[in-house]
C-alpha cells in the first residue's frame, strides 16, 4: 500500500513513538514536501531535503513532536559524547589533558584598567592622603550615627537596632523630620565620624546613605534582600559587645578601593579575637553582600560558622565627594545604567 510505503519512508528519525500521529505526519510531510524521499529508511539523520527545518511545519502538534524527537536525539548524542570523553580520560589516566575551565561571567570579566596594582606609588599616595587617612593612621576612632528616613516602619527600626549591635560605638537616633544638611554640622561638632541613613520605601528598607563625616565622601547604595535576625535560619545567639573582624572581598578597582575603605572605617581598628565575630563585605559583580558571622575552629583545618546579625545586599549608586549634598555636591562616580550597563561582563567595583 502506498500508505505503508510512505510510513516506512517517512520515519527517517529515531523510532516511531505514536503510530497514528506519525502516519498523519508522514502524509502531511509527503504532501508538503513533494521531494520527500522514499529511500530514506536506512539513513537516520537528515531525512528531509536540506533547507528543511522543524519550524516550517505548520501544524503545532506535529511540529512539537518533531522538535521533541530532535531534542531527545540531541540529548542522547550529548550523553554518548560525554561517556566517550570520560572513557578516554580514564584510559589516558595521568596523561589526560587538563579539564577545560567553564566560562563564567566572573572569568570573562572585561579588563579594567582601573584595577589597582599593589605596587603603584601614585595610587598608594592618593590613598594614604585621602579622607580616610586619619582613620588608617589610628588618629581617630569611629563613632557612627545611624538614622532612617522620616517616619520609619517596624522593619527599618529593627534593622537599625540590629545594625547598631553589629557596628561598635554606634548610636541610633530617630529622624524627626530633620534635614540631613542640618544634622551633619551637629554630628561633626559632636565628633561623629560617620553617618548612616537607611532609606525606607513602602515599609521596607531599600537604600543606604553612608557619609564619612568631617568632609569625606558620601556613598549612596541601593539595599535589597534585607533579612533581620529572626528571619535567618540556623543562626547563633545574639552578637556580643566584642569588636568584630572585617573581611573585604574583591574590591579591586580604584572605585572599589574607595568604597572598601569607607566600609573599613566604620569599624574600630582593634578586632577582639576573643569574640570570634566577623563582618564580611563581599563584592561580586558590583553587588556587595554583607554578612555577620561567629566562627569557631573545630580543628586545624575545619571551621564552623554561625550566621548572626542582619544580612543585606548593597549596590553602589553614586559616590559623592564631600558630605551629603545631592543637589550641589560634586560626584566622583555616578552609576548611569544606559551607558555603563551595556556589557554583561563589565563591572565597576
Amino acid at each position: 500500500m502506498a500508505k505503508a510505503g510512505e510510513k516506512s519512508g517517512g520515519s527517517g528519525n529515531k523510532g516511531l513513538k505514536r503510530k497514528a500521529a506519525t502516519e498523519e505526519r508522514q502524509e502531511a510531510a509527503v504532501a508538503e514536501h513533494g521531494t520527500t524521499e522514499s529511500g530514506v529508511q536506512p539513513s537516520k539523520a537528515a531525512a528531509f531535503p536540506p533547507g528543511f527545518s522543524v519550524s516550517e511545519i505548520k501544524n503545532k502538534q506535529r511540529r512539537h513532536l518533531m522538535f521533541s524527537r530532535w531534542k531527545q536525539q540531541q540529548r542522547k548524542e550529548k550523553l554518548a559524547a560525554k561517556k566517550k570523553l570520560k572513557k578516554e580520560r580514564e584510559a589516558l589516566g595521568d596523561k589526560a589533558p587538563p579539564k577545560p575551565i567553564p566560562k563564567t561571567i566572573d572569568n570573562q570579566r572585561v579588563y579594567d584598567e582601573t584595577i589597582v596594582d599593589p605596587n603603584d606609588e601614585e595610587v598608594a599616595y592618593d590613598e594614604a592622603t585621602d579622607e580616610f587617612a586619619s582613620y588608617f593612621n589610628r588618629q581617630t576612632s569611629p563613632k557612627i550615627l545611624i538614622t532612617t528616613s522620616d517616619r520609619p516602619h517596624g522593619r527599618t527600626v529593627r534593622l537599625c537596632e540590629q545594625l547598631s549591635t553589629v557596628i561598635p560605638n554606634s548610636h541610633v537616633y530617630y529622624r524627626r523630620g530633620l534635614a540631613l544638611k542640618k544634622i551633619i554640622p551637629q554630628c561633626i561638632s559632636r565628633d561623629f565620624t560617620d553617618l548612616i541613613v537607611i532609606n525606607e520605601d513602602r515599609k521596607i528598607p531599600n537604600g543606604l546613605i553612608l557619609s564619612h563625616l568631617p568632609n569625606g565622601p558620601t556613598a549612596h547604595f541601593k539595599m535589597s534582600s534585607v533579612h533581620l535576625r529572626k528571619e535567618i535560619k540556623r543562626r547563633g545567639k545574639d552578637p556580643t559587645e566584642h569588636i568584630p573582624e572585617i573581611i573585604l572581598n574583591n574590591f579591586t578597582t580604584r572605585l572599589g578601593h574607595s568604597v572598601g575603605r569607607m566600609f573599613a572605617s566604620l569599624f574600630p581598628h582593634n578586632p577582639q579575637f576573643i569574640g570570634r565575630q566577623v563582618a564580611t563585605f563581599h563584592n561580586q559583580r558590583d553587588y556587595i553582600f554583607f554578612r555577620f558571622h561567629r566562627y569557631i575552629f573545630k580543628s586545624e583545618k575545619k571551621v564552623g560558622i554561625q550566621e548572626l546579625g542582619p544580612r543585606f545586599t548593597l549596590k553602589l549608586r553614586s559616590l559623592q565627594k564631600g558630605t551629603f549634598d545631592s543637589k550641589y555636591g560634586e560626584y566622583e562616580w555616578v552609576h548611569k545604567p544606559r551607558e555603563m550597563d551595556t556589557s554583561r561582563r563589565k563591572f565597576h567595583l
Partner: protein
Amino acid sequence: MAAAAARWNHVWVGTDTGILKGVNLQRKQAANFTPSGQPRREEAVSALCWGAGGETQILVGCADGTVKHFSTEEGRFQGQRHCSGGEGIFRGLAQVDGTLITCVDSGILRVWHDNDKEASSDPLLELRVGPGVCRMRQDPVRHHMVATGGKENALKVWDLQGSEEPVFRAKNVRNDWLDLRVPIWDQDIQFLPESQKLVTCTGYHQVRVYDPASPQRRPVLEATYGEYPLTAMTLTPGGNSVIVGNTHGQLAEIDLRQGRLLVCLKGLAGSVRGLQCHPSKPLLASCGLDRVLRVHRIRNPRGLDHKVYLKSQLNCLLLSGRDNWEDEPQEPQEPNKVPSEDTETDELWASLEAAAKRKLPDLEQSQGALQTRQRKKKRPGSTSS
C-alpha cells in the same frame, strides 16, 4: 626620554595630588611631572595656563599659593614664585607682557612681575573682586581685560590698565515667577571671539550670554541644561556653541544663537572639572573626578576618541592647540629604529644593494609610515602611566 618627548604631549592635566601629567595621545603615553619628585597634596594643581612664548611654558597654580613654571621643551619645572595674599586656591591664572595675573578664592586679584629676580616683590596691581570667586578668565584677544565671577559674585569685567572699577558689571536677572531673588553662582566664564560678549555657566544649571556693548546689563540670552550645577565650559571651533559639563558627568553642546541643546556627549562618570576644545579640530578634552581623561570628537562622527586612566583626581587641563597632531619629526626616531630593522630586512635588501643607495631613504620612510599605521590600528585604546 620623557623629558625630550614632553613637548609633543597633546594634553597637560593637573591633579589633586600635585602631579602635572603630560599625555601623548598619538603614542598613548602619559608621563608624570612633579616639582619635588614626590606627589604632595599641598601642591594640588588648581589652575593651569600657557606661559609666554607660544606653548613652550606652562604656569601651574598650586594650592599652597605658589605658581610654578614648567617648560615643555625640557620637561621639568623651572622656577616658582610665591604669590601670597588672600586665602583660598587659585581660581584664575593668566599672563600678559611678562606679568602674571592671579586671582584667589577670597577675591584678591593681583598682577605680579614675572621676573625670577623679583620673586618676593609686591604685586604691581591689586584689586578686590568680591568674595567667593569661582573663575577668572582673561580675554584671549585683549590681554589686559579679565572677567571674574563666583558665588553671589556677579560677573565683572576688569580692565587692568584702566581704572579700579570694573568696565562691565552684570546685573542679576529679574525676580522669578514667585517674586524671589534668583541666586547667582557663576562657575565658568568664556569670552566669545569677534565680539565683546561673554558666556557664563552657573551652578544653577543656567548658561547666560552677556553683551557689554549693549545698554542692558542683564543677560542677553539664557538657557538651562539639566538639574545639576554646571562646572566647566568651553567654546567650540566655529564660535556658535558652547560645551558645558555638570557635576554628574553630563556634557552638552548648547547653541548660543537659539539657546537650545544640540547634543549630549556621554562617557564621563564623575563631575567634570576641566573642558577644552581644540581651536580648529573638532576635538574636546575633558577631565574630572572619575580620574579619566577623555577626548571626544564633536562632529562627524560624534564619539569618544581616546580614554586615558590617570589614577588621581584631575582638576584642570590644557589642550595643545597645535595643528600638527603627529609628533616628532623622523630624525630622532631613525637611529633607534634602523638597527633593529636592519637584521630583519638585511636579507631582503642585500640582493638589491647595488641599487639600494637611492632606495634607502624610501625604505626608512615607508617603514616609518607602516609603524604609524600599525599604531593607528590600536586606536581607540586606553593608556596608563
